[in-house]
């Protein structure tokens, strides 16, 4: 992981960015503000050195949705009154297109800031930040454990697949045989994970997980700079201004 200012931002700051940017896009009239916020996210992704992956994900996410929105909203939206083109089997409506466009931008802003958050934080850091902000450490456990448990379960599934094949269970063939094989594969995964669960719970208790009246500490240091606090206040102010301005525009109209 390379070090840069985007990565160094406190996880909470980046987490707040998702709802603030998203909601601002939704409440603002038209899609101009949304496009601007999208640009901000793109610049940040560039600064964080993840621009290539970021664009790839956005495109592979955005294009199918854009196509679907174009067809569904552009051609079949009940709001359509002004038609810009006639494709023969259906007419392309301006209202639907505008609605689809706004939706697409909103989605891209949400997903983009979510992706940025997701790729520029270190998972342990998030938990530490959550623990510090006195948000339940149990919540932190659930998020991190869910992330960490899966790769190991995948490895186990692979071993079980081999073990069942060695017992003569065919894993290929017709749809029915493939559905039937689901139980010999999932059964051992589920049952043996459940057995492990018992010991894991014990291990957590033994390591003081459930202690009350203790303010927990963390090995990972999370920096919450003045700049972070400034950013967060700034974002909230921004959201309030955008909302107020949008309401004003609507009322005036």
């Amino acid at each position: 992981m390379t070090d840069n200012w985007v990565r160094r931002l406190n996880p909470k700051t980046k987490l707040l960015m998702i709802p603030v940017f998203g909601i601002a896009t939704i409440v603002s009239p038209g899609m101009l503000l949304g496009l601007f916020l999208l640009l901000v996210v793109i610049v940040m992704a560039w600064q964080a050195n993840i621009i290539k992956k970021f664009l790839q994900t956005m495109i592979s996410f955005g294009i199918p949705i854009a196509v679907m929105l174009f067809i569904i909203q552009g051609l079949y939206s009940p709001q359509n009154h002004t038609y810009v083109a006639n494709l023969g089997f259906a007419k392309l409506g301006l209202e639907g297109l505008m609605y689809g466009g706004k939706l697409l931008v909103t989605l891209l802003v949400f997903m983009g800031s979510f992706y940025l958050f997701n790729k520029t934080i270190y998972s342990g850091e998030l938990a530490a930040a959550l623990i510090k902000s006195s948000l339940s450490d149990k919540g932190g456990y659930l998020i991190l454990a869910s992330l960490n448990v899966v790769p190991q379960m995948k490895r186990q599934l692979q071993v079980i697949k081999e073990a069942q094949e060695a017992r003569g269970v065919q894993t290929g063939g017709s749809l029915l045989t493939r559905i039937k094989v689901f139980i010999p594969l999932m059964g051992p995964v589920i049952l043996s994970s459940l057995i492990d669960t018992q010991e894991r719970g014990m291990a957590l208790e033994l390591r003081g997980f459930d202690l009350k009246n203790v303010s927990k500490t963390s090995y990972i240091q999370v920096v919450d700079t003045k700049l972070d606090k400034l950013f967060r206040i700034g974002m909230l102010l921004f959201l309030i201004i955008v909302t107020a301005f949008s309401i004003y525009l609507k009322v005036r109209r």
Partner: protein
Amino acid sequence: MKVSSKDVISVNNFSFSYPQTKKPAISSMNFTVKEGEFFCIVGANGAGKSTLCDSLVGLIPQYFLGTTKGQVLVNGQETTKQTVAELSLEIGLVFQNPFNQLSYTTSTVAEELAYGLGNHGIPRSEMLDRVAAVAKKMRIESLLDRDPLTLSGGQIQRVAFGSTYILNPSILVLDECTTQLDPIGSEEIFTIIKQLNDEGVTVVMTDTETERLSMYADRILLLDNGLQMGVDKPQAIFAREDLEKLNISTPLNYQLTQELTKIGILDSPEFNQDIILEKIKEVENGYR
């Protein structure tokens, strides 16, 4: 002598049965463990070794539902008077499967070691010192930045062990913690355990493999079918005639000693390999 006369664990007429089973998993356990002792629990599979270990650290009856009778005292306090977490500062448990000892919330060995300390609210500066010290003791300094889930069995067992030991318990309970390791890996773990014991840590250990236990144990508790068959010095335990029936293999050292006494090379049972070696050499040279 490292063993003091103080009882750190005393088990008084303790029984436990899991829900909906008629037969108790362990019944009428009565024994004490002395401070600094290397205490071993030996028994066949299903004899109740793990149940007993879980009882010593308070998991039974606090975590497992079931019915208990009698009491277990650790450092004079009944185990039910404290939570498992509080108790773990005095008595730690290492499992057979190290993968189940991990927290699954960390991405480096260092964080994993520090996890328990964090739960106990130990300040970060002290945390760093203790992580470094334990890593050195467990010989995992070079692994501190690795992801625990990518380690080998022996390495991960040492991490699991370290994450228990870092809470500084004065008593360690080890439940078959070397069964999944190769001979070199389990040798390493045994060396570490022995070192901790020499430094004054009380060790309670179970294993199906009697070979090594016989060399290290101060005393052995013999279990069969949930019943306590006796507590004694290894020499006395492995000389018992009912071992065969109880499904316990006699360590090679003891078999050899018996044979050597039979043919008159040893006058009395001797278990130290170096002394046996010396004696045989003497006899050999005498005949040359």
